[in-house]
């Protein structure tokens, strides 16, 4: 049971043209080897502070989560092989900010610090962020976080600075297996579709699925999507993330009615309470 590399997939790797088109990541977890080169490259390039070293006991994962100071996180699922029950199956996946089409973090940001770049990515302007922390609770993926000593919110920028000069992001460049692929989003989606067929048919991974490649999902698709070998929650990701403006509209409608109840109640109490 082998998994062929993406180079053997029917769609050839395109070059990045840059400018105008929406750029993103396709993280093909079926060929991730868990080397953490992406984590290291990201820290180096973006000058992300280190975490307190600690050993989690959760397989090879000591990073544990995405956060203000971990913008790539390699998850390690170590479990008995589901087909035979004998031996170990490894699932490894390099997680990252999804650069959502409908980005909750950006929508709820009160200062306008979070914006969408010309590459279609979602970036925090650190000179504007005042550390209100709203994006932290709003992100459906638990990605963005406030740095305790600094007070502001930080997350993956999809290497905005590198993209501007025509370079690819540090993690994609460092990835030795092309598990992390960078490019125009529509091309990545096409390639991922072909790749999924290969993984499903040739390797027998029945649960294999694209996660976030579909524009009709709750957040309108991810700018950084994945090929997973099992359900998203197995990797610590939400099964059906959602952010919809119409949900917010119905909340405001409910709040308006509730405000009316308050005003009416107060008026009633005063009128009725009058002797």
């Amino acid at each position, binding site marked *: 049971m082998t998994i062929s590399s993406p180079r053997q997939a029917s769609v050839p790797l395109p070059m990045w043209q840059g400018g105008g088109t929406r750029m993103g990541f396709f993280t093909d977890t079926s060929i991730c080897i868990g080397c953490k080169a992406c984590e290291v490259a990201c820290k180096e390039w973006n000058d992300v502070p280190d975490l307190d070293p600690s050993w*989690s006991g*959760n397989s090879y*994962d000591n990073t*544990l*989560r995405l956060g203000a100071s971990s913008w790539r996180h390699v*998850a390690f699922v*170590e*479990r*008995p092989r589901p087909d035979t029950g004998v031996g170990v199956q490894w699932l490894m996946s390099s997680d990252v900010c999804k650069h959502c089409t409908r980005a909750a973090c950006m*929508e*709820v*940001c*009160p*200062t*306008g610090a979070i914006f969408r770049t010309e590459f279609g990515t979602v970036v925090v302007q650190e000179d*504007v962020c*005042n*550390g*209100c*922390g*709203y994006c932290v*609770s*709003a*992100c*459906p993926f638990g990605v*963005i*976080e*406030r740095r305790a000593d600094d007070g*502001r*919110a930080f997350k993956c920028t999809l290497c905005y600075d590198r993209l501007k000069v025509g370079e690819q992001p540090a993690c994609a460049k460092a990835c030795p297996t092309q598990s992390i692929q960078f490019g125009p989003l529509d091309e990545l989606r096409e390639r991922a579709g072909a790749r999924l067929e290969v993984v499903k048919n040739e390797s027998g991974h029945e649960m294999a699925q694209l996660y976030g490649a579909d524009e009709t999902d709750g957040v309108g698709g991810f700018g950084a999507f994945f090929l997973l070998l099992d*359900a998203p*929650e*197995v*990797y*610590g990701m*939400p*099964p*059906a993330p959602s952010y919809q403006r119409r*949900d*917010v509209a*119905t*909340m405001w409608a*409910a*709040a308006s*009615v*509730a*405000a*009316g*109840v*308050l*005003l009416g*109640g*107060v*008026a009633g*109490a*005063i*009128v*009725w*309470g*009058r002797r």
Partner: protein
Amino acid sequence: MVPAANPRSYYGLPIVKRPAWTQEVPWYFFVGGTSGALAATSMVARWSANAGLERRARRLALAGALISPALLISDLGRPSRFLNMLRVFRPTSPMSVGSWTLAGFGSALGAAETAELVGLPAAMVGTAEVAAGVLGPILSTYTAVLLGDTANPIWRGARHLLPFVFSGSSMASAGGALCVAGPVGDLRSARLMVVAGTAVEQLSFFAMERQLGALAEPYAEGRAGTLNTIQRASSLLGAALIATLGRRSRLGAAVGGALTLVGSAALRQCIYRAGFQSAEDPTYLVRSQS
């Protein structure tokens, strides 16, 4: 053989982040909410020619409007950048809408008070009071949208009922504050506000727990569970006291009012805490989405 990992979670680690907010935020929900309902009281009292109640409610509201920004600013990661809140108006952000509402609300109340102090025409006082009175109920309820518009399962799952919990609680605590502050004329209106507000608050809270189903678990466990017991007991006892002893005795009304305030404050703390507990266990989120 390696022990099987829980198939529905990644080592039981949280999926969404715990709230980044501090204690000041639920205190603000309480102070701002009460203040908003008091401003509405002041506006209506003016229309019904109850000058004593109008003034008392407005001054209490103003006190709340002065404390509120302080609480919010101290919660920021970068307090010195608090003015960035008013850098732009972003209708998609409940926090932006709320910041502008609070700014307008505080200014209107300040203007009303100042206009009266320096002896400007009553119409000017009245206009400012109407502005504050209209913004007040929004201030009392937008905070529920703020919580609902997150990825937190226990908040998001109750996004259409939370505004009613907050509006009822604000009405009750405004009445409670007036009962504690003591009578201007008589306290009938304030007592009615406590009883009606508590009814809306507790019924909405009950409906919210029912609607959340299994997601409501944090409201019965840990710190949120304890706070839930406190809020329910204080609110119900306060309202009962106000409805009975409070009719005859000033002391009874004051104690009942104080209990109502405690209940309302504990309610906001309870909902805030539940957000932490809900985020910490990934099974809530997975269940809410499958």
